[in-house]
């Protein structure tokens, strides 16, 4: 079922007031997350900085959500093609990152 393009755009970007309001809501999340990140990361020992990095790396693969949106629901062929490439890259990032972190942490535990 194809829906009108305008509605499809709406579906991807929930309407929530004007541009400025949306931006400030997003900015709120950004600022709060930065503080949370600072509080958490400063407590992690240097021993575990490599698994932390690859684990964080995997989390940054959350961009996969965006890739899924444009690959699976893109309205133009070009957007779909770009989306496909983005899905491949982001999935490598997510799957590889989590696996590598897992292996490294397992090494640390095994030594004990």
């Amino acid at each position, binding site marked *: 079922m*194809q829906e009108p*393009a305008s509605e499809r*755009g709406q*579906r*991807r*970007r*929930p309407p*929530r007031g004007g*541009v400025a309001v*949306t931006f400030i809501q*997003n900015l709120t*999340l*950004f600022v709060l*997350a*930065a503080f*949370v*990140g*600072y509080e*958490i*990361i400063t407590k992690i020992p*240097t*021993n575990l*900085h*490599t*698994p*932390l*990095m690859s*684990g*964080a790396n995997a*989390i*940054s*693969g*959350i*961009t*996969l*959500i*965006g890739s899924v*949106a*444009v*690959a*699976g629901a893109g*309205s*133009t062929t*070009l957007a779909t093609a*770009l*989306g*496909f490439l983005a*899905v491949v*890259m982001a999935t*490598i990032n997510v799957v*590889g990152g*989590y696996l*590598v972190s897992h292996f*490294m*942490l397992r*090494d*640390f*535990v*095994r*030594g004990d």
Partner: protein
Amino acid sequence: MVSFLPEWVLPLSYLAAAVLFIQGLRDMTHPRTGMRGNMISSGGMLLAVGVTVLWLDILSPIVLLAGLVVGGAVGTGLAVSVERTEMPQLVGLFNGFGGGASALVAGAELVDQFDTARTIAAVSVDVTAAGAVSGIIGAVTLWGSLVAAGKLHGVLDTSEIRFTGDQAAKVVFLLVAVAFGVHIVVRPDFAAMLLETQWVPSYWLLFAAASILGVLLVLPIGGADMPVVIALLNSYSGLAAAATGFVLSNTVLIIAGTLVGASGLILTVIMCESMNRSLANVLFGGFGEETSSEEMDATYEGNITETSPEEVEMLLDTAQRVVIVPGYGMAVAQAQHAAAELAELLDENNVDVEFGIHPVAGRMPGHMNVLLAEADVPYEKMRELEEVNPTFSQTDVVIVTGANDVVNPKANTDDSSPIAGMPVLNVSEARTVIVNKRSLSPGFSGIPNPLFADDKTSMLFGDAKESMQELVNLYKENH
């Protein structure tokens, strides 16, 4: 409308995913909880992606599935097959893919919205601005990471590659990228009107300029500064994802991306502080000195005491406490297994043995720890600089293997040296220091190391792996 899920499912799932990411990172304080945290975090990812797939009208399910399968297979293949010694370049590579994906998504979304709105001017400002930011950061991350991974893997020249006007070139390409970004945001897209295309050429020109910038940023950076670069690129990949979140107005992208951005930035700061250098100096300043052979001779001539594995083994026989200080040389020689075995033997003979690890030893944050963990060194035997430094005065023998600048006392004594003020491991406070090195050649800083000429120090010349293995064999014979 395919969606069979109520409207509130998506934002609620994103909230849950964000909480799971945060909890996953919180668990990273110890490897045991860390394993659980990694699972929790990946569960959050599965939830976020799964709900997104269910919620959207997937017009091209085959394309999506193919992308997921290909990406999953490649990611798994790399993670399973790559050696731990090659971890720095793998982390760099994954990082680059994340950044690249963010930039592509932002571009695709602009193309898509442009197609809907018919003119870029009709696409809302926050989308175009965030798209430009995501494009610049994402492209820099992708190409910077590829260059970093290439250098770490040895396929690119690992030394500092510089050319006349390279600083100016970086500025030029940054300005070009920003100019295209501004062009996307504030003016009708002349290029697109001229070409009558729908693919928002300004964005892709921005992407190209930022790609060149990413290459130029990392090319001049030499080996021992890699930990800073890897941490910084890690931060960028998060910020690129957060910027993409602003493009799509997607809460979980913003939260998760920002968490990673903060994490990478903190690691970057720690790395810089561990070298007592500013980030600007690492990125743009040259580092290290050319030392004349006269200066080397003045430091070393007549003051070098050589030792043999047999002598070192005898020292270890009478030692109560031993600290092993690993450096990048240990990684190159792959001596971690022999070093770990020596530590295990000492431990069995009731010697108090620990590893003293400098934060920037190696080519990425935590590099030495990963190698030692793979060689089954117990977690509590790895000591950070602040923990191990006060203990050297009660240490009988320190064995330095493949480290140089991080044990150079000049950092504390010589204000004019390039490593002045860098926190170092004060190994000369111990009763005896054994430095295992192939030769007296300087480290990354290019300066001589007075530690080698110290009365307490004996040089054990030779390959790290062979020397360590020889110590292990001798020790086994006598116990």
